[in-house]
């Protein structure tokens, strides 16, 4: 117990058309939302600090080492 770190998912923003709370070439954390994913949307914690639905096509999934994930968590 306690030695399993949660594996957070991160995406790289590659498009931000009509999305003022996303910045291109920036990494964002995503949260699971299977219903939204079926519609082609991802639940993304955006620049407002809250999670909202954005088109999957605006992002590409990135795999970060655990140290990088932890650093991003701390910086929120």
């Amino acid at each position, binding site marked *: 117990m306690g030695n399993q770190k949660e594996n957070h998912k991160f995406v790289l923003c590659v498009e931000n058309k009509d*999305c*003022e*709370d996303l910045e291109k070439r920036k990494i964002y954390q995503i949260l699971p939302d299977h219903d939204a994913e079926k519609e*082609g949307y991802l639940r993304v914690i955006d620049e407002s*600090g809250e999670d*909202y*639905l*954005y088109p999957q096509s605006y992002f590409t999934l990135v795999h970060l080492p655990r140290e990088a994930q932890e650093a991003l968590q701390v910086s929120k």
Partner: protein
Amino acid sequence: MFFEIIGEIEEIETIAIGGRIRDIMRIQKLYGPGRWRKLKGFANVKLQTGNIRKAELHWYEAHGFGRKKMKIKRFLD
């Protein structure tokens, strides 16, 4: 926009005002000073796929600025 609101937004309510808005500094920097409110409501939205879903929407408003940063919080149906 990556979604289109179909019809009217219903059950609109204010969820934060002024300094209670998490990113009030960004809002004021982008649009200017004002008595900003964050609101939520429910509407049918047409998605990029063409599907229509009922969704909870969040956005910001201040007198003279209209609705800004309309975003989908979640699908409801």
